[in-house]
């Protein structure tokens, strides 16, 4: 008879065998990192530019420039670019954050030679025509206006402004910025950060036949400039409490957190681990307490984020309006527990397994694996990061985590932003 109540032995989770990146050096010395895997004749090409919002000297410059990369060049109009890419079943993706921009191409290998020239031309020779500019600007302005209605959006922007002060990480667009941005701003930005700039290039999936020759022909002629060096930024730690009332809001958005450091800092991985214990997975302390025990929210999370020049720790949630105060009280209670109690061995090993499983899950399929490796490489910790990560996890211990909580997560080091119901 099957005993269903008996637990099954948990096998130790092994770090997966990751794809190995091969480096291909093009004629102009651009390095293309090729991560081959999977059985299908298709690939993804990612071009990473140091064109994030932190280097812009005007609001919206970086994001608008990125958004307009497929809207026309001196050689062909936007509609022609889209028509060709669509015809061959290719997909493009634009992604931008404060540090960098990523432009991706997904294509079947049999059409690689047809779509790559178009893709490269679109990025390199983008000409930011007035007409297309107006369309994209109107789109972005409208999403901005709609987002501004959301409590979460307000809380997030206020949070970054508070912890990063005047650093570009703290700046977010304002509505009037949309009237003060022009095509020539994008041309200037494009010149400096795309057209003549250094980049990193990654290919995942299967390398197309003649891929190297095609890459050399279209990418190997791109002129390069040296990457700017990274400026570390560590503003004063603040303790602001900002409560913004939004009439009629059914929920309050809460953000609690502080400025931290990037992934090269000695405490980074431990603090990141601590944030997982607190609010990084379904069974985390915040989720167990505030969602699963009290039912105050649909979700709550804590994260520790690397940024090139800094980094931050943040707790975020949307809770029912009348439960705002209780949620706050419980969040601070959970933070206090991290500072005052040792995490049990059982919980530590649970979280370690969870993290290992997460890495394993992110290794499902060649694209996912390549993304994981690429992110580490872009951060400057190298493709081999995960080979040593097991050791980092093994070395994590409860006493050090408690010390860390006292070093970084005392209430007087944290800012608190609430948008919504503040009547308590």
């Amino acid at each position, binding site marked *: 008879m099957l005993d269903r109540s008996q637990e099954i032995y948990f096998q130790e989770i092994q770090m997966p065998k990751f794809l190995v990146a091969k480096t291909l050096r093009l004629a102009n010395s651009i390095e293309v990192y090729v991560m081959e895997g999977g059985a299908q004749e*298709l690939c993804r090409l990612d071009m990473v530019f140091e064109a994030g919002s932190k280097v812009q000297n005007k609001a919206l410059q970086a994001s608008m420039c990125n958004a307009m990369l497929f809207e026309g060049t001196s050689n062909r109009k936007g509609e022609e670019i*889209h028509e060709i*890419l669509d015809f061959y*079943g290719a*997909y493009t993706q634009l992604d931008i954050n404060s540090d960098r921009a990523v432009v991706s191409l997904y294509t079947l290998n049999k059409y690689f030679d047809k779509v790559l020239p178009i893709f490269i031309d679109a990025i390199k020779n983008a000409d930011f025509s007035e007409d297309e500019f107006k369309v994209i600007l109107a789109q972005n302005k409208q999403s901005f*206006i709609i987002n501004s209605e*959301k409590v979460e959006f307000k809380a997030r922007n206020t949070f970054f402004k508070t912890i990063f002060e005047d650093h570009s990480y703290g700046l977010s667009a304002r509505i009037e910025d949309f009237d003060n941005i022009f095509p020539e701003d994008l041309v200037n930005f494009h010149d400096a950060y795309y057209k003549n700039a250094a980049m990193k290039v990654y290919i995942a999936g299967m390398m197309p036949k003649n891929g190297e020759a095609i890459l050399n022909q279209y990418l190997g002629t791109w002129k390069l400039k040296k990457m700017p060096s990274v400026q570390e930024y560590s503003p004063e730690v603040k303790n602001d409490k900002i409560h913004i009332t939004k009439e009629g809001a059914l929920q309050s958005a809460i953000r609690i957190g502080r400025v931290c450091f990037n992934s090269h800092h000695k405490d980074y991985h431990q603090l990141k681990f601590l944030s997982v214990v607190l609010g990084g997975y379904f069974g985390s302390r915040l989720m167990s307490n505030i969602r*699963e025990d009290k039912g105050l929210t649909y979700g709550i999370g804590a994260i520790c984020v690397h940024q090139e020049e800094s980094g931050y720790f943040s707790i975020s949630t949307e809770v029912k309006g009348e439960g705002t105060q209780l949620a706050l009280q419980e969040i601070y209670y959970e933070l206090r527990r991290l500072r005052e109690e040792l995490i049990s061995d059982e919980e530590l090993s649970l979280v370690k397994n969870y993290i290992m*499983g997460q890495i394993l899950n992110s290794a499902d399929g060649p694209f996912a694996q390549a993304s994981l490796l690429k992110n580490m490489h872009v951060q400057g910790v190298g493709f081999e990061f995960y080979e040593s990560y097991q050791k980092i996890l093994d070395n994590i211990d409860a006493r050090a985590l408690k010390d860390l909580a006292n070093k970084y997560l005392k209430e007087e080091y944290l800012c608190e932003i609430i948008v919504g119901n503040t009547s308590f």
Partner: protein
Amino acid sequence: MINFEKFELDNGLKVIVHQDKSTPIVAFNLLYDVGARDEDPTRTGFAHLFEHLMFGGSVNISNYDEIVEKAGGQNNAFTSNDITNYYITLPKENLEQAFRLESDRMLGLAFTPKSLEVQRQVVVEEFKQNYLNQPYGDIHLLLRPLAYKKHPYQWPTIGKEVSHIENATMDEVKSFFYKHYAPNNAILVVAGDVELDQVKYLSEKWFGSIERREYHIRNITNEPKQTKARILKVERDVPVDVIYKAFHMCARTHEDFFATDLISDILSRGHSSRLNHSLVKEQKLFTNIDAFVGGSMDSGLFYFAGKLAPNITLQEAESGIDVEIEKLKANLVSDNELRKVKNKVISAHMFSELNVLNKAMNLATSELIGDANLVNKQIDLYEAVTSDKILTIAQDIFRKENSNTLYYHTK
């Protein structure tokens, strides 16, 4: 091409096994053939509430999530109007944990009052977060009852109203479980570096002893043919006017589905698609507009959804859509354009086969539609669509008396 093997246990549980040796994880996907369409009109949102309760402990296991986490797995679930789907991805070495967890939930839940009380509240917060405290969040709460008068697709999975969730009782919850959760109402897919014999053994071991249940026989009223255009105008405190149009179309299981889906691609898949090119870029009537099919198991809806550009009236915007619709009804789609949307579908299909969880979900849904192997036939079915077929379907669907229009005005 996704290779798979299929077998059925004596209790009626269908099991599909797909071997993929290239990935370190296994996807374990369990689909129950129950969704919001199976709900009582006075107790809507139940299928989804139930999905939450499934994580509140089962007969022999109180710590579902903890076991998944210890096993290095990730899990989640979703509910649609048609199905409730649970999945776990985990390292292949720990596969049996998934069998233990899911078979115990199928056997029976713990039904603790605390779990019901908390999950009711959580779902109410989900309702607020996604539908009420969100600009445009209530669109589907408005549009579904406009388009469906008889069929239970008239409410979204979250439910018609918060009170249905708030008033859910334990007895109702239990009866919902025994009505719908049964081995003979489920499809299990295991995909990854696994062997058929291993999955057979584990399925028999863990699910074999669960008895077949007399589950609820679906008895859904078909939506009567719509005979008059319907219009709903609302005013909300939102920054931008929005228009939605929904036309009745065939079911996911109907042979016309593929051609209808291609119509939505012609209209709005990719930047070069018709709506995007003509209405956004050229005429600047919208800042965003989409056309898409719902893809439901019973007769579904073909949607248009657009956000208006500043200073454009809803009438101007709507006539822009109408002109595009008339073109589809009057002229054959060119070979080149048809080739383009087909190419796009083929590549999207190939990209979707890159990870094992996607493959598992596609197999499960295909099996539900009638045959897991549909997953491999899809491309041929899309390839077979002709421009004549597209013309006929466009003429059939896009009739004024078949339309449901929602004007969502700013205050």
